[in-house]
């Protein structure tokens, strides 16, 4: 059974809405919000072992929102509910937040906006500059520090 089908339509709507509150779109940085359809699809496709805790967090969110869809609340109320959820903390809210940000910050558009290449580390790797080895000179000049026995 896919994680997609483990969330009710209402939970999926609330997940999308809270993701958009956590990370909204930004014209300044030319990035989508975490409620972007591609990012939402990634979240749902990869929920996996996090599904039950995410469901728990969404249940709490629904309770705080008075069983109203989060997206239907006015912006001020929506933000207040979100802040209340964040303040509650705990494993479920932490997991919900993590699954949102871990999918957001691997989206090609977002990664590029950070000045990074949208690719896995392997096989290309990265270049590590050598650094300034003369910084070690004062340390080299020290006498041995370890205790002889």
């Amino acid at each position: 059974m896919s994680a997609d089908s483990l969330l009710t339509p209402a939970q999926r709507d609330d997940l999308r809405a809270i993701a958009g509150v956590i990370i909204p779109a930004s014209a300044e940085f030319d990035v989508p919000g975490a409620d972007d359809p591609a990012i939402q699809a990634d979240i749902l496709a990869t929920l996996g072992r996090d599904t039950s805790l995410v469901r728990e967090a969404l249940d709490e969110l629904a309770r705080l929102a008075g069983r109203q869809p989060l997206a239907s609340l006015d912006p001020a109320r929506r933000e207040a509910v979100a802040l209340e959820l964040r303040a509650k903390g705990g494993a479920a809210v932490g997991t919900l937040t993590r699954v949102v940000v871990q999918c957001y910050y691997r989206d090609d558009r977002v990664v590029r906006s950070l000045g990074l290449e949208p690719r896995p580390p392997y096989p290309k790797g990265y270049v590590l500059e050598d650094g300034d080895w003369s910084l070690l000179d004062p340390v080299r000049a020290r006498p041995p520090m370890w205790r002889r026995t």
Partner: protein
Amino acid sequence: MNDSVDVLIIGAGASGAAVAWSLADTRMHILCLEQGGWMNPANYPSTGRDWEARAFGDYSPSPNIRARPEDYPINDDNSPIKVVNFNGVGGGTVMYTAHFPRMHPSDFRVKRLDGVAEDWPIDYDTLVPFFEENDRMMGVSGLAGDPGVPPRNPPMPPLPLGRSGTMLGKAVNRLGWHWWPSDTTVATVDYEGRSRCINLGHCTPACAAGAKASTDITYWPAARRSGVELRTHCRVREITTNEHGMAAGVVYYDADGVEQFQAAEVVVLACNGVGTPRLLLNSASGRFPNGLANSTGLVGKNLMFHPYAQVYGYVAEETDSNRAPPTCLWSKEFYETDRSRGFVRGYTFQFGRGVGPVVEAVASEAKGLLPWGTGHHTAFRRLNGHRLGLSAICEDLPEEHNRVTLDPVLKDSHDIPAPRIDYRIGENTARMMEHGIARAKEILAAAEATDICVNSPILYGGWHLLGTARMGTDPARSVVNEWGRSHDVKNLFIVDGSLFVTSGGVNPTSTIQALALYIADQMKQRLANLFD
């Protein structure tokens, strides 16, 4: 019925691989049983776009979160530090940072020098040839000439300082303190069939390029070429004994879950500081009602972790971030005892290079540095790629109330009782951690870092599992003798971190492997009268 073997090793990790390789030149029939399987680097996290996310799932360092079929659960609810490990060929060396310091000479003489705990039955000089052999086999990169440690000559040059190392070096120089590029098992040149590091940066959850040494790619190929048999997906339930009180062999479950008996002349435990006492306690019998090799009651006691006090902050310049091995520098400034600090013994500072964007976002959101909503993007761009951090690896002293026992309820997938951890941080260690946090903040201040964060202890920081079947010359105060043989069962040996009498303040893998090679050497020298 399996044919009897001369030597049966349980566990194919850091110590099991080393002892198997060393004993292979005896031409004895050597078999290793490993509960996990061979790793496939093509599936390692850094090969995919979800490389960071997998650290929270199937490549979590916690076996309770990872929950692969090879893992066993651990009840660590009563510990502020959670056990982390890896089960598979290579064991914990598959999933470690590759920071590779040795223990210091003073670490073996803590009672005589500092009046605490107990001295080891061996000393640093005894281990030097085995440290050197292990450095060659694992492939260590580093820089000779460090005044903070005894002389050694790593076979490969050190990792570059990079941006992060340069910033940290400047900061520590401003304080006049010691620092040095860390010894590491990351290959900096092509070495013994391993390619040099290409800076995948995500070293800890296994290296897809094979630049980081893990025993599946170092010791095991050599040991197997020499005739050692390695049987994977075999989980040992118990060690059985014969009418003479000697180990007869083991009962294990094979890859199909079928119960098997394997007879052996010698049994060697290499299951780490939690797995080894678990197996000994699970091997209780009428003759050994408190567990095997446990006439002292010390099996499982004196568990030591190395509590980590982690401190980090953010600088204006870009750091190396995730684009280089996390292993960077160490400092021995506060390693040796100075009683004016309010504690005895000491710690190593291990400096990092930074983290990737997902880990940064998750961590800084949890710390309250990264807001939800408006302001998120601006804040993230100030944090991401700008982190500098370090951890104090604090020496943990042995205390009998810190222990591994068998959980009365929790069992693994083969219905074998799981380990339970009861642990609390001792007063001396707590003072040491506070000292480390204060000094780390001074270093970060010298680096002009802001938004300082502290994780103390690191919750999922129980990497180093030590002390639960310690070595010694007094059978009333130790589980094995000075060359790893059980005082109670003359053909039973232990070669893993359980042996440690004290923990030192360094990552222990180098010392664990040197000890395993030393014990194998002792066994080879005594083959004619091994059981006397």
